[in-house]
């Protein structure tokens, strides 16, 4: 059939009416948001896509609009239900009508949204990322890092101007105990599309100073509850997992934990809570030092007391013993001296010299002995007992030796053993030839004097 050519407007008008006729109702559609923009008048413009089930290539794409009247209802509803705002990369279930306009082309008009679909989808995505981290063998790595007992040098990833960073610093540096922390900020974009690259770059930067820092703190600077999605990002989580220092998070949300929280060494709710935690660790360390200090003082005190008591006891038991020994020793020596003098008087004059020398030696010996004794008594406390014991033993031994020696040399004892001394004309007879016959002899025995005559 031959027809007149149509104008473009006419053709597009036909497209418009055929869409309207064929798709007159609203449909629930599942799609992914690839772009999202809200303009000054409150209209929300989006691009919806659908990817191939295998891979990243896009098989369908359409523009979509949420007019401001609808958006004012949809946005808060979505956000309170899911805990996050609409954002690119998010899978949504939306109620749409297909529209066509001669000038603006094809577009979907969104009139409603089903947040529970997104929640389920986010949970599924999150679980997928977790599974992937587990499969990669990195999921538990950061949590296995050893947290230093005193985290003094802290690398912070945050945005410089964020209120959360200010709270963190105030809490940390203004701690009431006066603890000293060293904080270095590695600024990063903490939300939106740039966050992944920015946070990973900050981690890399800290990594180049790894030996210097004790811990890494990732805090988000407050702001909207939305835009947390970057903390569910695989690459950020992957870097946190493998970071050689323990990572503490204070991302500032009350809802579900993000993946960054799950893989971090220590997860805290807010930047302030992270600071409190760090101050708390110092507090524990401080108390430990105080406890040790007290334990040390107590132990040493009781040890010194024990030692003192023991020494006093030793001295108390030892002193009378020593006195007694010295007294007895002195007594013995005096007795010996007296007896020797007595014995000597009974001996001929020429023996007097030897006896006097012996007496002298005895005196010197006992004098020396007493000096040594008193010196040794003053010996240091630790070795007092052993030294005194061995000293006493030696002392006793010396006394016994002395006693024995004297006994053998005392003429009286010699006589007692059956020896005798015989005099002729008042002189001791040493040679039989020195005595003539018929001479009067006097023999001294232990029991007395015996007179006799040679034949």
């Amino acid at each position, binding site marked *: 059939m031959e027809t007149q050519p149509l104008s473009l407007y006419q053709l597009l008008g036909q497209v418009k009416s055929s869409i309207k006729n064929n798709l007159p109702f609203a449909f629930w559609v599942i799609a992914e948001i690839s772009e999202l923009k809200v303009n000054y008048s409150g209209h929300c413009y989006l691009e919806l896509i659908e990817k191939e089930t295998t891979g990243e290539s896009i098989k369908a794409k359409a523009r979509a609009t949420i007019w401001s009247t609808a958006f004012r209802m949809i946005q808060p509803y979505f956000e309170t239900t899911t805990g996050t705002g609409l954002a690119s990369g998010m899978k949504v279930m939306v109620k749409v009508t297909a529209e066509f306009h001669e000038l603006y082309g094809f577009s979907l008009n969104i009139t409603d949204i089903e947040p529970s679909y997104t929640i389920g989808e986010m949970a599924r995505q999150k679980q997928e990322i977790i599974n992937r981290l587990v499969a990669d063998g990195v999921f538990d790595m950061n949590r296995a890092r050893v947290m*230093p*007992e*005193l985290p*003094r*040098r802290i690398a912070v990833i945050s945005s410089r101007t964020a209120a959360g960073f200010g709270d963190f610093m105030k809490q940390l540096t203004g701690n009431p105990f*006066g*603890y*000293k922390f*060293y904080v*270095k900020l590695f600024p990063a974009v903490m939300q939106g599309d740039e966050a992944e690259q920015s946070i990973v770059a900050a981690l890399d930067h800290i990594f180049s*100073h790894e030996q*210097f820092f004790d811990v890494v703190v990732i805090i988000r600077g407050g702001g909207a509850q939305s835009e947390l999605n970057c903390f569910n990002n695989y690459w950020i989580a992957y870097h946190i997992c493998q970071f050689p220092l323990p990572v503490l998070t204070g991302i500032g949300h009350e809802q579900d934990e993000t993946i960054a929280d799950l893989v971090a060494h220590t997860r805290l709710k807010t930047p302030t809570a992270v600071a409190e935690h760090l101050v708390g660790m*110092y507090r524990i*360390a*401080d108390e*430990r*030092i105080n406890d*040790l*200090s007290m*334990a*040390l003082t107590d*132990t*040493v005190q009781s*040890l010194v007391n024990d*030692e003192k008591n023991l020494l006093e006891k030793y001295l108390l038991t030892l002193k009378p013993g020593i006195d007694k020994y010295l007294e007895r020793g002195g007594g013995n020596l005096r007795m010996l001296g007296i007896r020797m003098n007595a014995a000597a008087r009974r001996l001929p004059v020429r023996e007097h010299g030897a006896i006097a020398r012996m007496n002298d030696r005895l005196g010197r010996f006992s004098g020396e002995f007493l000096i040594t004794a008193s010196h040794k008594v003053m010996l240091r*406390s*630790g070795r007092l007992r052993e030294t005194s014991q061995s000293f006493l033993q030696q002392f006793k031994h010396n006394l016994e030796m002395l006693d024995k020696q004297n006994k053998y040399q005392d003429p009286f004892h010699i006589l007692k053993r059956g020896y005798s001394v015989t005099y002729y004309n008042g002189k001791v007879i040493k040679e039989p030839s020195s005595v003539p016959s018929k001479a009067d002899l006097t023999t001294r025995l232990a029991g007395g004097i015996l007179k006799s005559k040679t034949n």
Partner: protein
Amino acid sequence: MAKKNMTYSEAVTAVEDILRLIETGELDVDELAEKVKQASELLKLCKGKLFRTEKEIEKILKEMDEEHKE
């Protein structure tokens, strides 16, 4: 001995070791005095780590800031 570059954990552990040694009573009087001195030095070092500003660390941080600007 109390070394300057000892970490808090190392120092605290060293004090605990000394304390154990004293408590078991294996120390001679002369050694005791030496060990007690050592322990109190270590504890002082630990306290210092909590409160004192270390010039060395601040210097490194400053260098890092400058490097960052470039």
